[in-house]
């Protein structure tokens, strides 16, 4: 196969690919620059569930000696007054601002056949130690769109260490154990430090935000995502109270 013998169709496809390549944005390795923020504002608020969605515990079907008879279903954690815990709130598109206030090292545990914490915010290039505190074997299996993929068995009492440069892109990493099908957890690799997760009563707060208009992304594993717009003024606290619809 040489160029002259190539069909027109193939050529046109080639040309369109070249164009697409030139126009497409660089992969999601958006760089973030740390610096001082003067006269920053803050964003506070709470997230509620509209509709109902209480979760029954999951019955454990194997390894009951190590896992117990049931585990709580953390895919939707609803508090008093329908408040939602474990919702990720992130301000998008800030490429320069406060210093990372997330540590460089994280520990993620597997205890009683559940991941702890259920959702964890980490930063790019973070080191993660995934422990197995149970008396049975687990496999740490991550599912993500190119952020970080691993699937290794971890013996009781041992751990899996994710080295510093393995997680470079921001994004969402689902963690499962295929040996215990009910186990599921999430790592959220932040794009910038302006990220928070709602607490048990559905509240969150993000500080030291450079003034401006931003898009805020809310994400919950079962309810999906929602984009809100906020305006942050210097030295002031903005409020964002959102509700996510039950599915």
């Amino acid at each position, binding site marked *: 196969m040489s160029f002259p013998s190539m069909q027109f169709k193939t050529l046109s496809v080639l040309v369109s690919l070249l164009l697409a390549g030139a126009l497409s944005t660089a992969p999601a390795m958006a760089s973030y620059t740390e610096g001082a923020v003067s006269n920053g504002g803050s964003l506070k608020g709470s997230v509620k569930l509209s509709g109902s969605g209480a979760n029954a515990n999951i019955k454990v079907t194997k390894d009951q000696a190590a896992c117990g008879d049931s585990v709580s279903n953390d895919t939707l954690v609803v508090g008093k007054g329908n408040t939602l815990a474990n919702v990720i709130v992130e301000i998008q598109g800030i490429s320069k601002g406060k210093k990372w206030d997330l540590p460089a090292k994280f520990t993620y545990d597997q205890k009683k056949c559940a991941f702890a914490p259920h959702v964890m915010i980490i930063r790019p290039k973070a080191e993660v130690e995934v422990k197995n505190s149970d008396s049975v074997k687990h496999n740490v299996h991550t599912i993500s769109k190119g952020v970080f*993929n691993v699937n290794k068995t971890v013996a009781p009492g041992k751990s899996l260490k994710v080295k510093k*440069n393995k997680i470079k892109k921001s994004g969402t990493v689902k963690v499962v154990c295929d040996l215990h099908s009910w186990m599921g957890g999430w790592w959220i690799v932040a794009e910038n430090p302006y990220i928070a997760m709602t607490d048990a009563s559905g509240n969150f707060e993000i500080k030291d935000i450079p003034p401006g208009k931003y898009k805020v992304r809310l994400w919950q594993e079962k309810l999906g995502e929602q984009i809100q717009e906020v305006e942050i003024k210097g030295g002031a606290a903005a409020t964002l109270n959102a509700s996510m619809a039950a599915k």
Partner: protein
Amino acid sequence: MHYKLGNLISMLALTALAALLWPGQAFSQGNRPPENEATLAEGKVIYFDRCVYCHGELGDGNGPAADFLDPRPRDLTMGMFKIRTTESGQLPRDIDLFNAVSRGLSGTAMPRWELTLSEDQRWKVVYFIKTFTPEFADPDFNPENFVVKASSPIPFSEDSAAKGREIFLKAKCWECHGKQGRGDGQKSDTLQDGWGFKLRVRNLTRGWSLKGGNRPEDIFYRFSTGVDGTPMPSFIKTLSEEERWHLANYISALASDKESEGVVIKAASMEGDLPENADDPAWDSAPVLKVPLTGQVLAQPRWQNISVDMVEARALYNGQDIAVLVVWDDPFKDTVHDESQEIKEFQTTYVKAFGDIPRKPNVFRDSVALQFPVKMRDGARKPHFFRGETSDPVNMWVWKSDLQEQGVNSAEEFNAKGFQKPLALQPGESQQVKGMGTWKDGQWRVVLTRSLKNEDSRNDVQFEPGRLIPIAFNVWDGSNGEHGLIMSLSDWRFIALEASIPGSLYLWTIVVMLMVGLAEWWFVRYSRNKRKEI
């Protein structure tokens, strides 16, 4: 012609090399072209000529053919590859990609490109594939730093395989792969791949469908590296290298071949009643013929994502009857049939891998059909292997799991005159085939029995010893969504009843030998006497 010969020679040479060396060095690197702009550009041309239809213009595995394939074509942009010699989650080495392109991936639509592309071309296309994943250019992700060590292989021995079996049980491989390795360990079909598509656990006894190859040195890497994008984890942290070699030897011993020699099911003759049950030891005396099956892609709706790609058949007969035993692997026992979920009309001529038909347990029945010509001819002429023809009908014995579950005779007799027409059920008095099936450890064993001859020679096959009678197979796996023409099928094989040797034949042999001996003795005497006379 020249072109083909060249390919054949290079293929043979490569196969020889592959057999001699480890997979990591399976191909000589002497002819490897340099990785530069010029070779990348050539690789790109090859990609758009050969790979784009499945892997897509953007390399994201969304080419026009993608929806029809299970497993789906690899998304080359995520840096996630199944068959590697590197640790879990790491990028594959160049040689891994080159081997996958060259050998193809068994059990998938990925062909063996070593049959069509030169070694030079394959390297160039590998270089281009790497450009879809930016991490290949990042020294932190250099796959050469994460190669799984395979430093001290343990050669195959029964002892090593027995140790491997222990490890298979200890490491709980059977929880997914099944106690006998038939991929039947999971009670439900909830496993998914990294893209959210339902995933079938590999049947380890079907050596030909192991994607990365079925030699111990191939298998070793699968559970050492894990299969990225699937629930198959890496056992590098929980099993020692020695344990993993024993396990590899055990699994390589589980893997069988797809075809046996010959095309004839030699029905063995026996005295007394034929076994009604599939587990009867009498079956051991009948030789097995393995028959490979393919997806039904001759008529719409065409289906290529079959789950049953081989049946084992054998037969026994006595003075009156013949019984055929068909054995095939199926991880889920489906014994119901919901006609309302059958798909009557299709938008496309091929059935999509996901979405078109319900591929889950307890919707459609499992079923097998034996097909015979009605008219026997002495020449090579046979009816079309796919349901016969108008002028040359076939007789079909169809066993249905749902009928058996209902406690009625599980076999039905049909006639067909080509695939365009629906199967014609024979009237009640002509229904003479008896069926009996059992399912255990991910395997169906079904016996179909009928008299050798009957009155209905216009519609039914008639068996007579010493004759080659064509036979073909259709199989439906209900939990794979198969029903109607969505099935797997074989082409013609033969079934032959060994003509028993009459005792008088042995006597005549001795008589003839004696007579020849006598004649020779007389001749010798005669010629000696003659000589004396001279």
